[in-house]
């Protein structure tokens, strides 16, 4: 309890109100009287789609102080009508999971553990390795001399929780690089 005030004392309130048995409004605390859901105090609400299965349930993402404070079903969605399965209901924990990694990690050849690496170097290293592998394993023609124009040195396997736009860019880049071994969850 915060500072004691005699008139706020439930004993006084219960006998001064219609709640002599002290089971209702007489015993509420100041905090209770101003309770409000964090969905209504959020800075903004963003419409999204559940990342788990392919039903495509609508989600509403509540953001407060640039943090996701709640994700729940979007009642507007004609697909899901506001409902979510357990996985969809756990989306907020997915985003804010304590076990989530937010730093780049690097394991050197033969190393026994991870080390930290800055993002900039990591992308640069990957780009170098991409080009090297592409070059090392280039196949220009097949046995009949017909063009193949491809590299077998690079492969990719994607999940199906990627956006269409992401898949598009990946497919475009890999194809232009001649890296044909690109697959995704759809085959698994």
């Amino acid at each position, binding site marked *: 309890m915060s500072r004691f005030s005699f008139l706020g004392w439930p*004993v006084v309130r219960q006998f001064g109100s219609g709640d002599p*048995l*002290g089971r209702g409004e007489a015993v509420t605390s100041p905090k209770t009287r101003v309770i409000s859901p964090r969905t209504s105090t959020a800075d903004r609400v963003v419409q999204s789609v559940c990342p788990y299965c392919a039903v495509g349930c609508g989600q509403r993402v509540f953001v407060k102080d640039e943090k996701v404070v709640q994700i729940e079903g979007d009642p507007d969605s004609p697909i899901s009508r506001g409902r979510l399965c357990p996985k969809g209901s756990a989306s907020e924990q997915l985003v804010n999971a304590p076990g989530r990694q937010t730093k780049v990690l690097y394991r050197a050849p033969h190393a026994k553990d991870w080390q930290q690496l800055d993002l900039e170097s990591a992308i640069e290293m990957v780009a170098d390795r991409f080009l090297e592998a592409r070059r090392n394993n280039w196949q220009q023609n097949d046995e009949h001399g017909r063009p193949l124009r491809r590299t077998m040195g690079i492969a990719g396997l994607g999940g199906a929780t990627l956006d269409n736009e992401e898949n598009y860019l990946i497919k475009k880049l890999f194809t232009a690089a001649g890296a044909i071994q690109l697959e995704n969850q759809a085959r698994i």
Partner: protein
Amino acid sequence: MTVSDFDEYRPPEPPRWRKRGGKRRRAGMGGDRGEVPMVPEAGFTSYYGRPVVKPPPWGDPIAVYLFLGGVAGGSALLGVGGQLTGNPILCRNSRLAALAAVGMGAAALVEDLGRPERFLNMLRTIKLTSPMSLGSWILTAFSAGVGVSAVSEIDRMTGSRLPLGPLRRLLRGLEGPAGVEAAVFAAPLSAYTAVLLSDTANPTWNAAREDLPFVFVSSASLAAAGLAMITTPAKEAAPARALAVLGVAGELIATRRMEKNMDPVAAEPLHLDGPGRMLAWSERLAVAGGVGALFGARHRLIAALSGVALLGASALTRFGILRAGIRSTDDPRYTIEPQKNRLAARRRAGVIHDSITTAE
């Protein structure tokens, strides 16, 4: 279980682990498949043998409080008796005992709270439906009286050396009325804890509701009397011995009545395992203490031993009752069977309007 040459490389089977009473007794798939070693009777079904009602999170401090609260209540009565009958030693010793008991008891009570720092919230409201609330107010009122009277005694014992100043006169003046005030709340203090236990969904405690107050006031009486027999010379302790004998008699009778009135299934935990042994020993000690009080108590040592026996008996009663109740939540049978029986009995009697399960 040997299945291959590689068994030695298999990890050892870990001991079967249990979660919150969740995994014991595989009463599985509805429970009446005969896999339930404990409850073989047909017709009993449960959800994987899991409890229906939960035990309150009350550990030993609560049993200690039940015991000490009783000791305090009884002592306060002995104190006021001594006060009114001119038995200052009994009066003094009982007042001090009451203060010590209620002090430690209250401490035990606070100790057992989930948020001890919020113990003052007990006086946030007066709730007629809450024995704990009423009890808190009783305890407070009682403590006030006991405190004033006992502090006065302490002051007297220390040769009026407490730094009380002008308050001393006030204290001395209030001492008597305070003792009486405490005595007014003493019996309720001893009795309310029975209601506290019975006014729950706990199968055993609730089934004992008719007679548990009698057991508790008897136990309080014999315990306070026993303590007085230890602290007070035999000459001054005669009323305590009488109270002890009455208490023992009362407890023996009340306990038997209680069990007779209880649902037989709900009464079972009173005889099982640790609680059962405690209650059995409680009775033996009570009888021994009572006999000692009745016949051998002019002898100081016998009186003291009887007193210890009585205190022990009371403590065992409280621990026994508390734990029997907690034990009764362990097995859903104690909840389900009496309820099914009483529902069936009501239906047989033509009372069919009050079932929680309805077909329409």
